[in-house]
């Protein structure tokens, strides 16, 4: 027995879909925190609980089927076990599928961890008639075995006791017997690994086995550690030859076979009565319908539509409340605090900060509902079916079936879509999906299309033009995805091989915790960035201030008069013949236009105008685009301001008319094309940074998309001009 520690670190491992999360939740309650493992995009969940005066830190490892070094999840799990050396490792096993879950146990035993086995979903095992001798199981594994029903919390106390006991006990670890021939090879290998090279972080037997399997990380470790790798390699060659001639199979297959043999043998030994297999399980029956050859797709589309609806329709009401709240606060500040005085501070608070906060919060309802929807789909098991149904199409563009949902959400808003890529387990798939998501035309671009299309195109063409923009986006996404697959992210093909877990009733508690944690992470991480950038954008449009307004000079010289003033005159005829009368609003708008023109944004716009010419754009469009960087909808309002129309919306006829008179349809189309491809909004970039863990990717995406947009739009404009289309 060890000295009892005051703080114990516990890692929770297990297959995906075994209810590991509910065990984690049951142990930690609300005291959990979601973050990322350093350097990778894998989610890390930690929590604490106290038991009999000792503080237990729990880390929820990613769900894995094994601990080989191919997938990111497994690498992370293994690294944690080896580097952090938790005091106890709790392996959560689905009691209705013990054999396969025991395969992971075989790997854990090789790492010689301090094991506690949890047989979760015990109620289902009992219901199936499967009778197990837990003592036999415990004896064989040299570890306590605790039956639990995770989402009900049954077995929680026994588990805490078992963990506490394991933390101080020092039982000899169980060993997986690989069979005489392989054991001999392992012994030969061990002989070449001296144990006195200081304290190795891996057990020696583990090193031997892994080296035989040609595990990349272990090979690397041994090479860097001054071991006689030449001799080891020779030994491995010998072993492989011997085993191949004896069994005619590779080492991986043989070891896999032995580990599963161990699992099967264990289950058999501990089974008093096997489960009843006669009736077709509930899950199978449901799948008969949901993945039916003909019914499957329509049902799928209905469910997907449901998800979309939950995310955007249900979310729209709260969105309006938030917007009203922001508006209320704005007017409060404008009228009550600042007494209608236009000062820097007032503009900073109202336009900059509140505008920014609004920009962050406005996504929140969508995100919360999206996570709710995704949590339901994941926990019931339907998410795997989504991937199953959609994979054929997704695979054709180099992605995984699971990429479908993020892409779908992208039609509403890119930000939650990127957050939805968490469901992708392969880093490569996730990265590529994130990179191309902005190409899916999101809802924020709609006001732009609704402004431009009616301005330049006849009514009967409206639907086609709109559709063509969406299709171009989709096609580009597919093309870029294939391109990225071959270039930036080329290399290892990620296997699709995926379990279709049995359908389960999700626990409300689990879903809410799931939803809450993720939404809170978004607020914290992305929110701060978005707020920061909003303020910067505000500054760009605000400074430098215009002190002398052209319109004031015109008024002073008598050429222009503001309406209000003219009322003071008795006789309208007193107004001079060449004097133009403008309304108060017009006066304000003209000033705003000049302010924008002289601001940093305006100057930049004018500066890059030569670059924009090949696209058919002028500095005014350029300035509007800079504003659009904060949020796409801003494009329309900025354009309105620059044309002295004040902040107009897409319905505004005057803006359309002006545009029509100044630009041609080709330019209009080019505007839409450019806005489709380029400038992902700030929120998108913030979320990309958060999900990928590095600004690098956000910038690569930004630059890549902008370059792509430029080339494509310039080409379209040039070709159009040459062939006289739309000019």
């Amino acid at each position, binding site marked *: 027995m060890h000295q009892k520690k005051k703080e114990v670190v516990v890692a929770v491992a297990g297959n995906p879909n075994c209810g590991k999360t509910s065990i984690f939740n049951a142990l930690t309650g609300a005291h959990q925190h979601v973050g990322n493992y350093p350097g990778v995009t894998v989610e890390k969940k930690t929590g604490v609980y106290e038991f009999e005066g000792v503080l237990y830190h729990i880390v929820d490892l990613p769900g894995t*089927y*094994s601990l*080989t070094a*191919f*997938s990111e999840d497994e690498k992370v799990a293994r690294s944690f076990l080896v580097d952090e050396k938790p005091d106890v490792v709790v392996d959560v096993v689905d009691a209705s*599928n013990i*054999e*396969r879950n025991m*395969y992971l146990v075989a790997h854990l035993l090789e790492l010689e961890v301090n094991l506690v086995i949890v047989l979760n979903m015990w109620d289902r095992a009992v219901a199936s008639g499967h009778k197990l001798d837990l003592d036999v199981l415990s004896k064989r594994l040299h570890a306590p075995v605790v039956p639990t029903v995770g989402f009900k919390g049954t077995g929680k106390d026994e588990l805490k006791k078992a963990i506490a006991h394991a933390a101080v006990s020092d039982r000899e670890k169980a060993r997986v017997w690989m069979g005489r021939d392989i054991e001999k090879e392992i012994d030969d290998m061990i002989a070449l690994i001296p144990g006195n090279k200081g304290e190795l972080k891996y057990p020696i037997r583990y090193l031997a086995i892994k080296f035989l399997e040609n595990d990349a990380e272990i090979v690397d470790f041994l090479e860097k550690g001054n071991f006689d790798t030449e001799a080891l390699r020779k030994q491995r060659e010998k072993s492989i030859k011997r085993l191949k001639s004896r069994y005619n*199979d*590779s080492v*991986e*297959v043989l070891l*896999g*076979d032995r580990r*599963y043999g161990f699992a099967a043998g264990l289950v058999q030994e501990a089974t008093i009565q096997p489960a009843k297999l006669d009736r077709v399980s509930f899950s199978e029956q449901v*799948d008969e319908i949901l*993945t*039916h*050859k*003909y019914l*499957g*797709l329509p049902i*799928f589309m209905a469910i997907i539509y449901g998800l979309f609806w939950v995310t955007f329709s249900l979310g729209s009401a709260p969105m309006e409340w938030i917007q009203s709240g922001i508006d209320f606060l704005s007017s409060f500040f404008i009228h009550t605090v600042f007494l209608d005085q236009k000062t820097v501070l007032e503009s900073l608070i109202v336009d900059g900060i509140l505008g920014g906060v609004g920009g962050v919060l406005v996504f929140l309802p969508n995100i919360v509902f999206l996570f709710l929807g995704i949590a339901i789909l994941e926990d019931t098991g339907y998410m*795997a079916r989504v991937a*199953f*149904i*959609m*994979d*054929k*199409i997704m*695979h054709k563009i180099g992605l995984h*079936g699971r990429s479908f949902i993020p892409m779908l959400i992208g039609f509403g808003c890119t930000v939650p879509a990127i957050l939805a890529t968490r469901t992708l387990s392969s880093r490569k798939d996730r990265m590529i999906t994130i990179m191309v998501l902005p190409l899916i035309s999101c809802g924020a671009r709609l006001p732009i299309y609704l402004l431009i299309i009616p301005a330049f195109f006849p009514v009967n063409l409206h639907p086609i033009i709109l559709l063509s923009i969406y299709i171009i986006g989709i096609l580009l996404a597919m093309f870029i995805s294939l391109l990225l697959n071959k270039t930036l992210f080329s290399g*290892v*093909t*990620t*296997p*699709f*091989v*995926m*379990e*279709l*877990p*049995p359908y389960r009733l999700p626990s409300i508690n689990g879903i809410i915790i799931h939803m809450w944690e993720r939404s809170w992470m978004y607020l914290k991480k992305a929110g701060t960035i978005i707020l920061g950038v909003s303020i910067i954008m505000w500054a760009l449009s605000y400074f430098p201030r215009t002190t002398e307004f052209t319109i004031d000079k015109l008024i002073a010289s008598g050429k222009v008069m503001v309406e209000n003033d003219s009322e003071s005159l008795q006789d309208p005829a007193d107004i001079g013949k060449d004097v133009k009368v403008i309304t108060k609003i017009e006066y304000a708008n003209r000033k705003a236009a000049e302010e924008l023109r002289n601001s940093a944004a305006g100057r930049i716009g004018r500066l890059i105008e030569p670059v924009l010419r090949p696209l058919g754009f002028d500095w005014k469009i350029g300035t509007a685009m800079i504003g659009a960087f904060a949020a796409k909808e801003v494009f329309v309002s900025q354009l309105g301001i620059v044309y002295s129309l004040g902040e107009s919306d897409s319905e505004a006829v005057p803006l359309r008319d002006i545009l029509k008179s100044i630009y041609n349809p080709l330019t209009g189309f080019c505007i839409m094309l450019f806005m489709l491809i380029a400038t992902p909004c700030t929120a998108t970039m913030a979320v990309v940074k958060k999900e990928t863990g590095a600004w690098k990717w956000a910038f690569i995406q930004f630059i890549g998309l902008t370059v792509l947009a430029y080339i494509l739009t310039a080409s379209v404009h040039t070709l159009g001009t040459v062939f006289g289309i739309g000019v």
Partner: protein
Amino acid sequence: MTDIGELSRSLEDYLEIVFNLIREKKVARIRDIAKKKKVKMASAVSAMKRLGELGMVEYEAGEFIRISEKGEQLARKIHERHQLLKRFLTGILFVSEGNADRDACAMEHNTSRETIERIVGFMEFLESCPFPSELLLERFKHCYPPAGSDKKITMDDCREPDCEALMLKAFREYTEKEKTVKAKKRKLSISDLEPGQKAKILQIRASSVIRQRLIDMGVLPDVEVEVVRRAPLGDPIELKIKGYYLSLRKIEASSIRVVLLD
């Protein structure tokens, strides 16, 4: 019941000759007996006297020799033994007829009873069941009495009692092996299967990453799988394996060689 072992070799010969002569010529005369045995008539006479004393034949001086019932039974046995030995030579070793006849005789005279009995027992064994060669020697061991016992084996002891069951088992194993060999040649993979078909995995021929993933999910040689369905768009495939459901792309499935189970 008089057994073979009770007569001397010589007398056995005489008895056999008498038996054959009676069969051939209906009568056995001393002259013919002596001729067949290549001895003087006097020797033949004393042999007949001896056989008569043993109750094998009925001998009266000057009369034809008649064979008793006892003698006939014994003679038949001796004859059968001779035939078995001959069959051993011609049927197993493919010795020519003429040599086989002579050698069978010679063996009867010059080989120990034990050896003769073993050979005869062996022939009985072989003729009782068409053994596959692997099973042959294994089962023949049953024919020997346990070491150190005095138990004498008879020809009947060597007959195989469980022939039918053994043959069925051997046949099944044989067809299984043949199927496996054929399947390996035919290169059937999971992607070739239709929903509802069950198969046994033979080999995984995928790249290391995919292969490891498959192994981790329990896809190993000798494991049974059942194809449940194809996705509505045709790909991926859903399998039932080890009590749970696994989906994989057709291209991944095509790297897993199987043999159909029916």
